[in-house]
């Protein structure tokens, strides 16, 4: 393998990792943008999404790329319930309440998943396992191309939803000025539910794409990605969807670049090194605005 081939392959793995981060961080940023809440349990929605897809796949054998829609729908429902009964009662009561609530939710979801699915690691075999497409000096497994395609499609769908639909415009308005949105008659509590549900659905999509790539999963899989998603949204700018996309890609590329150049133990650390540098140079993040 020549040096260019190796370089391109590392970039490719970075883009793949970036896709998972983009979906997770965009969902987190959508929720933060509208509700301004800190939800450390966001990674658990990734985990639940992964388990829902895996369970349906194991029972029915349906193509997991098709189950992604079911998983997202299920997480919209779960997210709506969590928002209504957990976060809404404490909205505006202080960040400490949100942090403790979300830590409690982490335990509930992790232990709940362990009770339902056991806490042994599992894996899903994609129907396209073993199929690769030639790309220059190396071949790319079809699954990774599909993962990138689905990520792009979901993000484009979200963009159109936010730009073209009434609810999307109401979500953006609420994100920009919650009190102003209330004054013009927007039902912000309804928007909160929808935003939280959509954010969870994006996490479910990330979880599904995680497992179809052949990565193992267990009830504790969401904790580290959630921390990284927070780093990404701070890096990209709190509440900024484009910031989450660019931040996610940067994170994926930086992690894999660091693993290649510095060694695997730097993979997680490099993300936070970049985060610190960006915050020192531009405290609002790459795409954040003053006041966020």
């Amino acid at each position, binding site marked *: 393998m020549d040096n260019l081939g190796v370089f391109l392959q590392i970039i490719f793995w*970075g883009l793949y990792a970036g896709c998972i981060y983009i979906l997770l961080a965009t969902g987190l940023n959508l929720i933060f943008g509208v509700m301004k809440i800190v939800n450390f349990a966001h990674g658990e929605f990734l985990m639940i999404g992964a388990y829902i897809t895996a369970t349906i796949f194991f029972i029915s054998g349906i193509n997991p790329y098709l189950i992604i829609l079911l998983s997202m729908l299920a997480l919209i429902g779960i997210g709506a319930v969590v928002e209504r009964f957990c976060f809404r009662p404490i909205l505006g009561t202080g960040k400490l309440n949100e942090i403790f609530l979300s830590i409690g939710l982490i335990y509930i979801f992790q232990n709940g998943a362990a009770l339902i699915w056991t806490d042994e690691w599992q894996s899903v075999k994609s129907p396209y396992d073993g199929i690769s497409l030639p790309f220059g000096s190396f071949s790319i497994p079809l699954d990774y191309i599909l993962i990138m395609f689905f990520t792009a499609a979901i993000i484009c769908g979200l963009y159109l939803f936010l730009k073209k639909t009434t609810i999307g415009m109401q979500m953006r308005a609420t994100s920009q000025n919650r009190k102003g949105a209330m004054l013009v008659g927007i039902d912000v509590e309804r928007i909160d539910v929808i935003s939280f549900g959509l954010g969870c659905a994006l996490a479910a999509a990330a979880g599904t794409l995680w497992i179809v790539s052949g990565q193992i999963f267990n009830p504790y899989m969401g904790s580290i990605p959630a921390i990284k998603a927070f780093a990404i949204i701070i890096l990209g700018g709190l509440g900024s969807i484009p910031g989450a996309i660019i931040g996610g890609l940067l994170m994926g590329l930086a992690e894999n670049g660091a693993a290649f150049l510095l060694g695997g133990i730097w993979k997680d650390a490099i993300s936070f090194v970049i985060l610190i540098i960006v915050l020192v140079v531009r405290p609002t993040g790459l795409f954040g605005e003053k006041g966020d």
Partner: protein
Amino acid sequence: MKYSVLFIASILIVAVFIAGCTQQPATQQPSTTQGVIKVGVIASLTGPASNVGTNMWQSAQVAADKINSEGGVILKDGSKAQIRLIVADDESTQQGGQKAATKLITDDKVDILVGGYSSAVTSSYQQTIAEHRIPYIVTGASSPIITRRTDIDTSYVFHHCPTTDAYGQYTTLFIDQVVRPAVNKKLSAPADRPFRLALLYQDTAFGKGIQTAVNNTITKNNLNIQLVSQESFKMGDSDFRTQLTKIKAASPDAVYLGAFPNEGAPIITQARRDTNLNTIFLNAENNDNAQFYKDLGQYGEGAIIESRFSPYIAPVGAVADAQNEFKQSYFARFGTYPDMMGASTYDGVFIATQVIENAGTTDKAAVRQALIDLEMPQIIEAMKDQTCSFSSDFRESTFDLWMEQLAYNATIGETRPVIVWPDNLKTADFVLPSWYVAGSSS
């Protein structure tokens, strides 16, 4: 506001309750109210190592059942005592390990400890063991630091598990004596062609222990093995594609993995499926685990596992019947097969029982002395001289090891092992798979 506070408080209480569901020590009640010997089992029941930890705990229960059904322990005054197991979950973390050890020693007041998986986790609570001077038979953590560290008093710790030094050396010698000639033959290369070995290891005491053992063995024995790549990863990582791409660029003849089963299976899968690294993967013994075979599927074909107990094969000889009886008892109770760490924990419970019987008391110092003096026939694992005993210097057991190669069985969709080394135990010859690609022929 009042209701909000009440609601959050309720949520927290429920969270603590549910979280506690996995942390409460389970106990196995003896069938008699006579004297009871309390054996504490430290295992990873939750977290990334829960598969192995659960196996250890369940194996301990099978051992306790057998011991109690055969009459239990005979004490110095002639009275019989049943053994009672108390498990504590180390949560696969260092903090969890400290909590588990402290709870078993101070709350449950166990007489002896067995278990411990992951050298990083086990070494984190050795200070507690030292302070309370309680005999501890470590059956899962394999770094030699467990009994060789000098910063803490380890005199009450006994290591019934081959160290990374032992099996790292064993595997490297297997590479030199078996894999290297086979690759040279395939390449029609001269016998003095250096073997190109790559390492991919967990960045912990366990993984670094393997790395050190391989390097030391090559140097000490002047082996014709060249380490062309040495890459590491963080414990619990699941994406290894970048390290594998780098390793492939180094063109190795084989890759030795210092990984847990939940890491080893995705490493091999990602290597063969995603990076076309079609080589021989050598695995440490902790991977001889039913879930590992299941996760590997067809990608396990040709892989090597250094072993001393397998869920699917037993060496010809004295321990075969004992191993099969254990596997059947385990399967009958839990519906699955035990793994290697389970086997050593099974051994560990028997050893704990024997030394208390030998000491005739649960006095900690007397039990420790009984462990030092132990000369016990091997139980289910093949031991050197067919005897369980601990070395006088670092209190380590010495095992008879073997190397397995995995062959794909399309009917079950998984690989199954055959023993290929040493010659006195082997059931088949080592073969290079048809798809195998050797490193550069330089």
